């Protein structure tokens, strides 16, 4: 009797270790990844809006301020805004016209949305696994009392 309870105790210990050491870090990691994708999504939607504003106003030159770091700004002048360099990933930038850029951004946004869905799915999966293991532990502890 004492032997079986010892066995059960070890099993519960193993399950708990799995939840704490494996599933929960995985969950935190997945959430962080998804947050990064959300950030990207926001950047591209901002870019899209900015380009649309530029298109609407039809301005070909632009005055803006550049952040040098530590919240110190200097005025900057852009003589020709019709061509814009957009980050396409892996450190490459491509020179687009406005319409090309908007096309690219819509493709990119679709991909980012898909990524967000994937990560959401993954997160739900991990949460389900955690729930399952916790349920298993509960059963292990409750069975003898029944």
């Amino acid at each position: 009797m004492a032997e079986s309870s010892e066995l059960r105790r070890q099993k519960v210990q193993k399950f708990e270790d799995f939840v704490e050491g494996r599933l929960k870090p995985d969950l935190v990691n997945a959430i962080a990844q998804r947050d990064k994708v959300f950030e990207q999504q926001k950047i591209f939607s901002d870019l899209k809006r900015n380009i649309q504003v530029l298109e609407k106003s039809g301005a070909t030159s632009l005055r803006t301020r550049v952040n040098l770091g530590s919240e110190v700004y200097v005025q900057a002048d852009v003589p020709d805004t019709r061509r814009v360099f957009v980050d396409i990933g892996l450190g490459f930038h491509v020179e687009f016209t406005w319409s090309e850029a908007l096309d690219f951004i819509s493709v990119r946004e679709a991909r980012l949305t898909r990524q967000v869905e994937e990560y959401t799915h993954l997160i739900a999966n991990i949460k389900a696994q955690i729930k399952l293991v916790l349920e298993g532990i509960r059963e292990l502890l409750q069975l003898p009392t029944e």
Partner: protein
Amino acid sequence: MTGGEVKGTVTPFDSVFSPAAVREAAAKVHDSIADHQKDLARVQGFISDNTNLINLVRHLPDELSHDIMVPFGGAAFFPGKLIHTNEFLVLLGEGYYADRTARQTVEILKRRGKSLELQVESLKAKMMNLEAEAKFFDSTATDAAEGLVEIMEDYVEEPNKSKPESSMTTGPPVADLEKDISDSNGASISDNARTSTADDEYAQIMAMLDEREKEELEHENASGTNKELGEFEAEAPAEDDSSSDEEEIVEAATGSSTSPHSVNNKGNEIFQKNKLENPLQDSNCEISGKPIGGNLQQYVMEQSQDSSGNAGKQTSRTGFSARRSFTGSIIEHDDANLPKSSSNQSTSSNPAKPVSRFKMQKGNR
């Protein structure tokens, strides 16, 4: 301290500090150190950013414009250039911005850098504290492991050495000094009663010392006092220590007499007496000595230098400090068989002496 009966308690270290608890505490302190290390790295990163920015801001106005890629959101940029390179918009905090020139911006940034450096300093100080703590825990752990024991014994004051604690401080205020003096006066009277048989011996030694001091003074007068005065002023701050050393020497010289402890007390009081009086009244001294040991002679030489230095100060610089200018009378030794006169005492008494005497007594135990 040589008594056979049990006076204190003995506690093994590992019963007070269990090894596991010590280890836990040490781990906690180490974690905290690691946290601070991270903070420190972060702040140092800020500092390097700040210095880079200062360099950039300093050199931007060198040119009218700079070709740059102007960022357009996080993921895009335009080719363009910086214009108005001597105009900066700087965040002052709380959402307020100010237009500044390059020079003014550099000043703002330098002030930011200073506050960052202060943060680094405080972090380093904290880490030093924590490291000391960790070292303490580690050493406690090893001590406990080695089976060290703590021995505690209640301190029982010995009756014939009942001096006020305040006389341990090296530069007591005048009020304390007066209390001191009256206390030591009472003590010395009892000393006198006990040691009157040995007085002759002291009288003899004192006479020898007086002779030596007189010789020394004559020598000084011959070699000129100006130079000496300068030296004494430089020596003055260390005087307390040196005088206590000298007294120990004297102890050694008089240590062979019958009742060493009280005798030494007595001898020192007399010495102080003579030290105080000699510069002003050495001509009154009886010279009836015979050659004495090198230690004693050295003592006399040093002593006479000291006291003549004090005398010089008293004449040339009245009100030098509370310690120096104290003129309360020390009338503790009224031994008739000592070669001295008490008429000049008040002018030459030095308040630092009771202190050093106490020191000597401490050394005596």
